[in-house]
C-alpha cells in the first residue's frame, strides 16, 4: 500500500518536473524556429541574370544577420520560387507564399512589371512588400503596405543631373534639347522631369519624339538633332537603342554639350562593349557601389571575393538593401505583425546602403537623385556633392 502511494507520488513529481521543463524550454524552442521570407524571383528566363544577383544579395544579407543571431533572435531562411521571368507566375507565387506556405515575410521581386503586379497582392493580404516598385504609377495606387527602399524610379532618373545643371552658369548651359524616348512605360516615366526641368532652366526642347522598339536605325534621329543644332541629347532607351544613338552620333560627328542616356547605360555592358565611345554619358540611379553610406564597403569586399569584380553589381545591392529595410521594420516593430512593421516603417528613419530614408504615405523615400557620368571607362557619381566621386566632364569632349 505504502509502496503504491510512493510510486504514485513519484509519478506526480516526475510529471510536475516534466511540465516545468516544458514550460521553461518552450520559449527558446519556439524562438529557434526560423523566420521564413517568401516570394519569387526570375531565376530562369529573360531576367534570370538579374534575378540571380538579387537572390545573392538577399542571401548575403541572410548570412550576415544569421551570424549576428538572426532577426528577433530567430534565424531567417528563404522560400524562393522561380517565376521564370513571368509576371503572372510572380503573382501566383506571391499568393502561394502568403496563403499556402504561410511565410512570415515577403521579399521584393523583379522586374518592375512583376513588382508592380505583386503590390496589390501584398496589399490584399496586408503584407509589407519592400521592392523597387514599377515606377511612380505603381506607388500611386493607394497601397499602404508597399515600400520602395530604394525604388527604381524613372521619374527621378535625371533629378540629380538637372540639380547639378542648375549650378552651371546660365550662359554655359545647353540651349536646345533633342529628346528621343522609347515608347513604353519605362521611357514615359523619364520624360516628366525633362519637361519640368528644361522649362525651369530655360532649355528649349526642339525635338520630343517617341519611337517604338525595336528601333530600326538611329541615323535619321541623330541627323535631325544635328541639323537643328541641339546641344543636349536625351537618348531615353534600353541598351540596344542607346548604343545605336551613340554610334550614330559618333559617325555623324554630332557633338552636343551633354548626352543623357536613361536606363541602357547603367548595365556593365555599356562600358565593356562601347569602350571609349560610351564615355561622358550622364545617367541616374538610386543605388551605386561607390556610395559612401555604411555597408557599401562590405558589399564591395564580398563582390571582390566572390565575383572577382571591384564594385558590387547593382541588383546584388538592391536585393541586400530591400532586406535591410524589411529587417529594420521587423526589429523596430519588435514583431512579425505586418501592420506593426508597416506603421513602424512609415514613422521611423531607416539606414540602408542607398542612404538614410523616411517614407511618405505612398511608401516612397524623398526623391533619390544620384547623377552618374561615365568618365574614362568608370561610372562616377557626380551629384549630389556629398557622394561625388569625380568632377563632371562638361561640355562633352568632341569624338576622337
Amino acid at each position, binding site marked *: 500500500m505504502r509502496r503504491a502511494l510512493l510510486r504514485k507520488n513519484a509519478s506526480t513529481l516526475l510529471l510536475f518536473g516534466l511540465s516545468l521543463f516544458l514550460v521553461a524550454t518552450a520559449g527558446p524552442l519556439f524562438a529557434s524556429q526560423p523566420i521564413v521570407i517568401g516570394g519569387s524571383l526570375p531565376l530562369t528566363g529573360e531576367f534570370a541574370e538579374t534575378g540571380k544577383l538579387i537572390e545573392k544579395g538577399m542571401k548575403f544579407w541572410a548570412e550576415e544577420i544569421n551570424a549576428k543571431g538572426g532577426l528577433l533572435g530567430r534565424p531567417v531562411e528563404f522560400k524562393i520560387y522561380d517565376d521564370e521571368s513571368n509576371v503572372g507566375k510572380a503573382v501566383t507565387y506571391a499568393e502561394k507564399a502568403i496563403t499556402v506556405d504561410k511565410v512570415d515575410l515577403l521579399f521584393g521581386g523583379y522586374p518592375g512589371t512583376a513588382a508592380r503586379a505583386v503590390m496589390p497582392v501584398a496589399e490584399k493580404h496586408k503584407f509589407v512588400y519592400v521592392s523597387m516598385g514599377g515606377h511612380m504609377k505603381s506607388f500611386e495606387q493607394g497601397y499602404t503596405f508597399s515600400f520602395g527602399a530604394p525604388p527604381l524610379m524613372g521619374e527621378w532618373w535625371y533629378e540629380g543631373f538637372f540639380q547639378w545643371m542648375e549650378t552651371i552658369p546660365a550662359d554655359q548651359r545647353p540651349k536646345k534639347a533633342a529628346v528621343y524616348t522609347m515608347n513604353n512605360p519605362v521611357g514615359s516615366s523619364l520624360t516628366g522631369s525633362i519637361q519640368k526641368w528644361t522649362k525651369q532652366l530655360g532649355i528649349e526642347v526642339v525635338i520630343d519624339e517617341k519611337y517604338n522598339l525595336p528601333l530600326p*536605325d538611329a541615323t535619321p534621329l541623330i541627323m535631325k538633332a544635328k541639323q537643328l543644332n541641339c546641344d543636349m541629347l536625351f537618348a531615353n532607351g534600353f541598351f540596344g537603342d542607346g548604343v545605336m544613338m551613340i554610334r550614330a552620333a559618333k559617325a555623324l560627328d554630332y557633338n552636343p554639350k551633354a548626352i543623357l542616356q536613361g536606363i541602357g547605360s547603367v548595365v556593365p*555592358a555599356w562600358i565593356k562593349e562601347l569602350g571609349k*565611345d560610351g564615355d561622358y554619358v550622364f545617367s541616374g540611379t538610386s543605388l551605386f557601389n561607390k556610395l559612401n553610406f555604411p555597408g557599401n564597403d562590405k558589399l564591395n569586399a564580398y563582390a571582390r571575393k566572390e565575383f572577382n569584380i571591384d564594385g558590387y553589381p547593382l541588383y546584388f545591392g538592391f536585393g541586400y538593401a530591400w532586406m535591410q529595410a524589411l529587417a529594420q521594420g521587423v526589429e523596430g516593430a519588435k514583431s512579425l505583425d505586418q501592420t506593426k512593421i508597416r506603421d513602424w516603417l512609415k514613422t521611423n528613419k531607416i539606414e540602408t546602403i542607398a542612404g538614410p530614408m523616411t517614407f511618405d504615405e505612398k511608401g516612397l523615400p524623398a526623391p533619390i537623385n544620384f547623377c552618374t557620368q561615365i568618365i574614362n571607362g568608370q561610372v562616377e557619381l557626380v551629384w549630389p556633392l556629398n557622394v561625388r566621386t569625380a568632377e563632371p566632364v562638361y561640355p562633352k569632349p568632341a569624338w576622337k
Partner: protein
Amino acid sequence: MNSTLIFQSLISGVMMGSVYALLGVGFSLTWGVMKVINVAHAAFGLLAAFFAYTVFHRYGIDPVVSLVLSVPFLFFLGCALYRFLLIRITSARAVIVSSMILTFGVAIILENLALLLWGADPRLFTTSYTSKVIIVGPFYFQYPPVIGFVMSVVGISSIYLFLKRTYVGKAVRAAWQQPEASQLCGINLGRISAITFGLAVASAGAGGVGMGLLYSFEPHSHNLWLIYLFLVVIVGGVGNVLGTAMAGLIIGVITGLSMAFLPYQWVNLLTFGLLMVILVVKPQGLFQSEV
C-alpha cells in the same frame, strides 16, 4: 523636311533591309522548297554572331572573316540536323506545323546554349571600322551597314547562282519541283534535302553576323530577328531568293522614308501594317514563288 534627311534615311533603310534579306534568304528557301518553317533559323544566325564575337575578342579575327569558319560549320550542322532530326517529319501530313514545333525546340536549345556559353549580357561588334564613315557630300555612309550591304549582295547572289547555275543547285530545284521525277533521274532526295537545309542554315550564319554589325545582340535576340524573317519572306514570296532580296530593299525603303516623314513611333506600325495588307491582298507575296 529637307532632302538630305530624306536621302540619308533612305540610304540607312536600304542598308538595313539588305541585311534582313540576307538573314531571310535561307528561311525562305527551306519554307518554299522543303515546306519546313525553321523557327530556329535566326538562332543559328545568333550562334554565328556569338562565335564571331568570341574569335574577334580572343584572336582579333574580324567578324566578317570569322564566317570562313562558321559558315562551313553551320552548313554541316544543318545537314546533320536534317539527316538525324528533320527527316523524321518530312513525310508527315502537316510538315509545316510539325517543323515549326520541332525547330522551336531547337531554337530553345540554341538560346540556352548561348546563355550558358556567353551569358545574358548584350554584345556588340566594336571593330576598327565600327565608327568609320564614308562622307559623300552631305551624306554619311557608316562602315558597318555598308559592309552588311556588301555581304548581303555577295551572299544572296551566291545562293542564287548556286541554285541556277550549278548541278547540285539544279538538282535542289528539280527535287522539290518534281520529287518523283527527279528520283527517277537518279537524284538522291535525302541528300539534296540535307544540302538545302545546310545551305539555309549556313546563310543564317552570314545574316547573323550582318545583324551583329548593325545591332547589339544577346541570347534572346533571335526572337526579334525572327519577326523580320517572316516580314521579308512574306513580302518577297516564299522560296524566292530574289524576291527575298527585293523584299528586304522594299522594307528598308519604307522604313527609311517613314522615319523621314512620320513620327518615329509610327514606323513599326506602318511596316507591319504593310505585312498585313500583303497577307490579305497577295498572300503568296509580291514576287512569285520559284525554285
